[in-house]
């Protein structure tokens, strides 16, 4: 069953002709040439394809197009518009969190969702939040250090804000 499916992608309205049971990750990568979300298992077990769906962390490979009609999807490239992502990206960059980088966009999306949810996540919170993201290169500790650095950077930025009058 193929039909026109409309959804928001990084703030822009997209209409695609797609089968209802097609996965969002395939539509993004195969039809819309949006390749920042990666596909590494296709069954929700690695987190390389993480996106935000109406703000909630979701594996794009578990989303079939019937679930996408009318929702707002944010892919890794769309994080430019999300304030928390800047700290996440900066923290991960400073700590050289990634190596091959194929899992990096997915981790970035997950950590952005975490920072939106929690003011000051600690290492246990970070580990719990990243339970669905696999990385093969790093052994994860650089990612934990990067995430903690992101938390620190945001705390510093918040502290630097002028007191409300």
């Amino acid at each position: 069953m193929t039909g026109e499916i409309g959804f928001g992608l990084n703030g822009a309205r997209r209409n695609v002709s797609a089968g209802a049971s097609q996965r969002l990750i395939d539509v993004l990568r195969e039809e819309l040439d949006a390749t920042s979300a990666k596909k590494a298992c296709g069954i929700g077990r690695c987190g390389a394809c993480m996106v935000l769906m109406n703000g909630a962390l979701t594996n794009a490979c578990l989303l079939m197009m019937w679930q996408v009609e009318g929702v707002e999807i944010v892919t890794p490239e769309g994080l430019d518009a999300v304030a928390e992502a800047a700290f996440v990206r900066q923290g991960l960059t400073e700590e050289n969190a990634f190596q091959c980088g194929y899992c990096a966009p997915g981790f970035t999306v997950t950590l952005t969702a975490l920072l939106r949810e929690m003011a000051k996540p600690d290492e246990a919170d970070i580990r719990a939040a990243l339970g669905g993201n696999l990385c093969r290169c790093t052994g994860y500790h650089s990612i934990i250090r990067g995430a903690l650095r992101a938390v620190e950077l945001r705390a510093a930025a918040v502290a630097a804000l002028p007191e409300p009058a």
Partner: protein
Amino acid sequence: MEVLRPSTIEEALALSVGDDTYFAAGGTLIQLDWAQGLRPTRRLVRLDGIAGLGGIDIGPDGIRIGALTTLAALERHAFVAETLPLLLAAVKATAGPSIRNLGTIGGNIAGRRGCLIPALLVLDARLDVARTGVRQRVPLVDWLAAPREPDCIVEAVFVPASPAPVRWTYRKVGLRAALTPAVVDVAARLIASEGRITACRIAVGGGPVAPARLHEVEAWLAGERLDAVDWRQLHEALVEAIKGPEDGIRGIGYRRVAAANALVHGLGGRLPAWNPPAPRAAHVPRNSLPDEIRLGRAASGERWHVRPDGPAKIAGRLTYLTDVRDEDMLVGRILRAGIPHARIVHIDTSRAEALAGVVAVVTHRDIKGSNGFGIVVQDQPAMCFDKVRYVGDAVAAVAAVDAATAARAIDLIRVRYEPLPVVSGAEAALAPGAEAVHAAGNLQRELRFARGDIMAGFAGAAHVVEATYETPRQMHGFMETEGGHAFVDADGTLNVCAGGQHGRRDQMQLARILGMPEERIRVVSSPTGGAFGGKDELTVQPALALLALKTGRRVRLQLERFESVAAGTKSNPMRIRMRTGCDANGHIVAQQVDLLADAGAYASLSPGVMETALEHACGPYDVPNVLSHGRLAYTNNGTCGALRGFGCNQMSYALECQVERLAVACGLDPIEFRARNLRKAGTRGYLGQTVASTERLDEMLAAAAADPIWNRPRGLTPDGTEIIGVGMGMNYQGNGLGTLPPDPGGGTLRLAPDGMIEAALGLDEIGQGLHAAIRNTVAAELGCGHGDIRPVTGDTAAAPESGSTTASRGTYVVWRVAKEAAPCLADELTSAAARILDRSAQTLVVVPGGLAERGSNSGALLISFAELARALAPDGLPHAGVAFEFPKSDYFEGNARLIFAFGATLARVAVDRVTGQVRVLDISQHTAAGPVLDHAAYLGQIEGASVQGQGFTITENAVLQHGLYLTENLDTYIMPSIQDAPRSMAVFALEGLEADDRFGPRGIGELGIGAVTPAIANAVADAIGYWPEQAPIDPERILGALGGSP
């Protein structure tokens, strides 16, 4: 598939077409079902349009949870957390955070294998279910007992209010710490009054274990006094009552015992009896090594650089070779054998070719050159013609206008096979009368080595330890599966762009297959999303090349994960029988090794892996009497080849366990035992070859001896559930391919027209930080800034031959290119600038950004690189190149290495008395590999290798049955998650080189994995007195070693 969205339950039920209907809530389970081969139903009925299926209602009698309530909503629900901690524990153990955002409680139950079910069973949950014309509330236990009805929708879960349990437990026993399939889930609640159990509920389930209440055990327990429960008898009753299948990963025996342990322990009973192992000679930590540095952003200070590709990768803006898209690009797909061993009778592609949208189909008939590839032996067909030898063998490939059409076309190719007996193990392969995988027989390679007199050696031994160690079929697990794109240029050049580890060798292999001159083939082999040896051999390049040539169009292709698992190489499973003897003073006097390795269907680099393993038969120790024998057998078990460590880690596992066992036999501290046996620096290598100076075994042992890990608590944990031990392993890793294969190196430095200094090396950025290393090293040698340098790598058209990005060899190549070419380029730059500035070259010096006056205090630029480039003719830009052979030793009877890096790994582990599982608490790694080219890259390589080695030791194995993979994707092939990563990791580097050392920094890509397995195994032995002889460590055997019942 037809998707419908009714707005009422009645409407939904009316839309059902029986078994061909799927009622979908979050839709997460269906994906796994499809991946595991379930045929998609004709009709999918969405439940999310139906009012009343959501929400949580709290009433005086209990809580009603709407079926569409997501697991994440349950997890965050304050009242649930407060009143139903057992349910909350089950929710948190289910899937991962992102899946819990989609998955619902109704879906978890309706699939009949969710991890919530045991929890809900012991909570006496009832289901509100709807059938046509009927709405009723039924106990979950009854609903599960009744046959599955296709036309039944779960509307809500009702959890009745009940007295607070005096004890409760929920535990999921999985395969790793997070996002794991269940091995078995258990749940129990005890209600007591005046110290007597008045009611109890016990349930099991999860994954392949059918969810069930254990009524008989419940009845037995009811009425017992809480303080007088006979836990041993309860344990026996539980083991008896729990039913479950074998699934090739964990046996029923393990499921029963682990579940019984978890229930008994969770309800406050005793764990199985445990007798601590006999005390061993204690190791007393000594002084630390003064010159070692710990690596990290803070500690590394100015030597910590942000890697140049970091920001783009993190933002998702780096275009991998599998991300390239353009308008008229075709999509390729490969037909795999799907069966492990068969003769091909006929291949019919006509129906695929006739399908609209298919542009080309290729088979062996399209191969104009030699239909065989392989780095060592060319025994693997690019496209099979006479027979298939493993499940992932390539038989045909198609190029079509889109992925869906390509997939349909693959289904239309008819291959008639005549099945052959499956050779499903190395032992069986070498048995008389075994079916031959290759015409020449199944013994791919046999190696023997002897030194001294083995009989006399054992005759003089006071202690002999003999054991057989088995190692897994580890998958590389690179996140980017094999893939890329290909096209033919206007000038007829074939461009093949796919992740690899040696572009020029890929080019040579493709030229052989295609019957084309190498000059007409360009290979782009990086950036790539991880390799670890798994992209060293050709993967998708032949299919891409054939499709691009036949269609004349751009074609892209990327393997799905299941296809990557089936087709890709793995590490060689090894069975290593080792007999080691030492004298009464703890000197090893004899070492006998018998190695049997599974090659899978084709040789690839497996002969080299076995040879390297055998080269490490005595590890870093001097042993006078040695006898080794290795056999490598062809089987139909997938196909094997290079993986980080290249055989060293397998042999180190066996050897370092033997060493510790002998130390125990001698009553010696394991450090002292090693000290008595370490090879002496400056002596000849294992094979009698010359070895480079800067040997650091003594230092690594001293560093290990001083490590603070020895001071951390060991033995039984305060809560009594785990036993902690500390262990170590030593290793060394050769750099370079060795004396026998060609091993070219080289590179070019040049001023580019835009003013960047290009450092062109035919190496690949596979994640290891090649570009950072190039920038640091060239900048340091040339005197320019890091940002002035543009690495140009992984492209045969743009970079010269540098050899392969394998065997820990890239570091040396980068260093030598910088060292030799940078002074030449500096001369060229200063001469060129001198001409333009009309002054003497001697007065100029290269500085960040350009050239300045030598000795000037201001350092002000006299001319920038960009200005210099603009002022020069494009064909007259300064450049300097070098080409060399990677340094080789002087032994040619076998493959010997010259340059080595050294390490010691310490692990502190906890052995779980309930599940038999091992988790790594702390890892500390000491390395000596000369100067550190890039701190972050070095740290990353060691940490990453450490956890990859942990996976090899604890969770990873690509399991085959009769030549078919049981572990088809990342749901069952268990790589460590972040929750499995050690609590602490520390990486140290000892940088110094001997004054006469000409070889500079050593490569560290493999060093970090080499001693992880023995360190963990020895730590397990330290904890429980039992040496695991099988990796991954089997928790069932650990439980056996711990003793059976309470």
